[in-house]
């Protein structure tokens, strides 16, 4: 009689989506590839050994476990999975229009783990994503750090804090997006800052007090003020970037500048305060007033100033499958090749506070990696395989999966991030 585990495994195979009952148990070694670990020099003709969903060892001439399954990766490039520091996959939403500051709202309560956009992102090499509510609010809610495992429920694809609760940051925004006609919303930049300051001052009082009654909003803000929950601050214009940093200096939260279209103009100030920037490079300037000075050179300028810089998709502004393209464009306009690849991986992991788990291939870290058939920065290179925690979750050689890499009938209807797109695919306010 089959045991319950076998039965469950069969059910999983039928459903094609399920949490693995156990991460891969036998070691697998990937041999002969060029390995970009993002934690040191490029390894030519190296080997990567994984076991139990973790990296065991990586390098040239390393010891191969006797019982390992061996995979020939000659001609391939292996590198860590992409950490997308700003994404809207999964049909995410957050705050509603009833007020501009809603820290109690959680992105995790909106995300559809079956959204085809997650599979597409995986086909594009994304293995970790900071999935966020929109920017039409001063504070639109708690972001969700997604690990792109198989998953049926939101907890299956979550990162967890040590206490077992779901990990994420806090989304904030300034500039034009939160300036809205709706009641209670700011009409000017100074009012935006004043509303945030007023709210954080009130939170300070709560956090220092007895906390006798539960208050979801203040509880989340205590995590912000205590440095547990990183603030991901949508901001574009150079003066708005400075305002975000001014608020950080006053209240002491941990800050990542999100988008920062004009952050290159104040790169030295950003570097001086060790503020990371999660940047986006778009195909042309404009589309909104705050993006008029968008520059492909921005990432390179930030890099040279010494800013910890990542690149993000803001999916659906940029499709998750175009992440390597962004790195390529960054190099075109002056970023170093190594810097651009780090901007896709380890730098983002550091910005999210996940660098002990993901972003590089080092012993003990999650076995999240990509198999590429050439230079990661070449338009002609394909992602052949995406591995998450030791499981191959995308394989270009399988036609049923290849469609996630290209799109087309059968790739699934995406759950639209309402913040970004309306039904006809046209942009509405609040997304970028």
């Amino acid at each position, binding site marked *: 009689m089959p045991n319950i585990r076998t039965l469950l495994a069969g059910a999983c195979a039928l459903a094609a989506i399920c949490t693995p009952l156990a991460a891969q148990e036998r070691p697998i070694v990937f041999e002969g590839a060029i390995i970009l670990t993002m934690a040191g020099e490029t390894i030519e003709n190296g080997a990567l050994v994984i076991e139990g969903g973790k990296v065991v060892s990586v390098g040239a001439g390393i010891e191969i476990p006797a019982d390992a399954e061996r995979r020939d990766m000659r001609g391939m490039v292996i590198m860590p999975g992409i950490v997308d520091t700003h994404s809207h996959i999964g049909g995410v939403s957050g705050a509603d229009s009833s007020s501009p500051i809603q820290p109690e709202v959680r992105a995790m309560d909106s995300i559809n783990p079956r959204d085809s956009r997650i599979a597409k992102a995986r086909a594009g090499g994304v293995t970790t994503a900071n999935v966020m509510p929109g920017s039409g609010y001063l504070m639109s809610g708690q972001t969700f750090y997604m690990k792109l495992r198989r998953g049926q429920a939101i907890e299956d694809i979550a990162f967890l804090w040590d206490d077992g609760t779901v990990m994420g940051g806090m989304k904030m925004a300034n500039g034009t997006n939160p300036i809205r006609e709706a009641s209670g919303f700011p009409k000017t930049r100074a009012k935006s800052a004043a509303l945030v300051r007023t709210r954080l001052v009130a939170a300070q009082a709560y956090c220092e007090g007895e906390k006798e009654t539960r208050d979801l909003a203040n509880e989340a803000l205590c995590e912000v003020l205590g440095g547990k929950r990183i603030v991901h601050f949508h901001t574009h214009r150079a003066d708005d970037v400075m305002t975000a940093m001014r608020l950080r200096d006053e209240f002491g939260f941990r800050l990542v500048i999100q988008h920062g279209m004009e952050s290159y103009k104040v790169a030295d100030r950003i570097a001086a305060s060790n503020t990371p920037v999660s940047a986006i490079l778009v195909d*042309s*300037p*404009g589309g909104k007033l705050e993006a008029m000075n968008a520059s492909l050179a921005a990432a390179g300028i930030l890099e040279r100033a010494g800013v910890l810089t990542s690149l993000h998709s803001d999916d659906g502004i940029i499709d998750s499958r175009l992440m390597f393209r962004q790195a390529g464009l960054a190099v075109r306009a002056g970023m170093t090749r190594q810097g651009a690849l780090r901007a896709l991986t380890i730098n983002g992991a550091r910005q999210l506070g996940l660098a002990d788990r993901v972003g590089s291939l080092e012993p003990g870290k999650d076995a999240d990696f990509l198999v590429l058939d050439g230079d990661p920065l070449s*338009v*002609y290179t394909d992602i052949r395989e995406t591995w998450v925690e030791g499981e191959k979750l995308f394989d270009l050689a399988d036609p049923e999966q290849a469609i996630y890499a290209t*799109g087309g*009938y059968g790739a699934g209807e995406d759950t639209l991030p309402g913040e970004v797109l309306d039904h006809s*695919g046209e*942009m509405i306010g609040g997304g970028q």
Partner: protein
Amino acid sequence: MSARKLTVAAAFVASALSSSALAQDLVVRGERVFTMAGAAIENGVVVIENGKIVAVGPEATMEVPEGYEQLSAAVVTPGLVDAHTVVGLTGYSNQPDEQDFLETSSPIQPELRAIDAYNPDERLIDWLRGFGVTTLHTGHGTGALVSGQTMVVKSVGLTVDDAMVERRAMVAGHLGPGALGEGDKAPGTRPKQIAMLREALIKAQTGGEKDDKPKRDLQAEVLRDVLARKLPLMITANRAQDIMGALRIGDEFDIDVVIDGAAEAYLVLDELREAGAAVILHPTMTRHFGDYANASFISAAALREAGIPFALQSGYEAYVPKTRVVLWEAGFAAAHGLAFEDALRSVTIDAARIIGVGDRVGSLEPGKDGDVALFDGDPFEYTTHVIGVVIDGVVVSREAN
């Protein structure tokens, strides 16, 4: 004002007004020259005199004139042709006062002319030119059943007349959910769209026949030119049923229909081929939402394999970024099954032919306009730069972009 100052001022005005006024004699060398009129030439030379190409060939077999300005690059191609954009009618800051590509007061307005709305000073034109785009098919956009006329311009010029290549290129139409009326306004459904379009064409047909001296009717005059096949009807149609609707209209009225967008063209390849319709395909990297939910990165390759003439476009962007760049869209198609030279054709000669200016631009051949793009490597690689752009024999960009 001194005579010298006057001369300088006059020269400045001349240069600003017209590129051909200052057309130089140029020699452009390329380690590889893609003429799009035959095989690529190794160590090739393009000679331009008075704004026109006079000779193209391998340097070893040519007499290269002396005393001309010399440019050289790893790769030389024709100036790129964007087969469909609304740049010049939609401003980059995206404010209401500069969005002239769509008039929503009525669903059928073919009398709207692109020349009356084009802003040649628009910054996005400079942006595209910097990436080698020298010819634009631009004008009224998607979003209305019949939105107006399009035209073909060069990406230079102080006025629309300076930029002009073709004043009227096509009439722009749109079938599908993206071109429905707001609220109770017609058209509210797909069949209503088709009924209204058929009615307008029939009215134009019969209106012209009724009497010898018909009252002038600007709408009907344009539609009569469509019926007379002087102007193609470019119909934006993305879902397969909308593409079939557009082909049905073309068949019923025996008019030239160009399918624009065509996100699901790969589902109806036989029908498109039998109808003889050309396709101006959506940008390869278009977002897979809404009408484009089933778009595929491999659509260009599928069209090529089916033998359907097609070109790539930058399309219309409502938000950030405000325009795409056809160079990159072609590169992404080349990375998804389209052969390198076919991808280059889709933004040069094939695009030029589909928009009706294949005799002037799109290839490097004697007699054609001196429009050239120079690259420091494979044009489609993300990390390659456009290092020079020439329009009508004038070097309009020397930056590395």
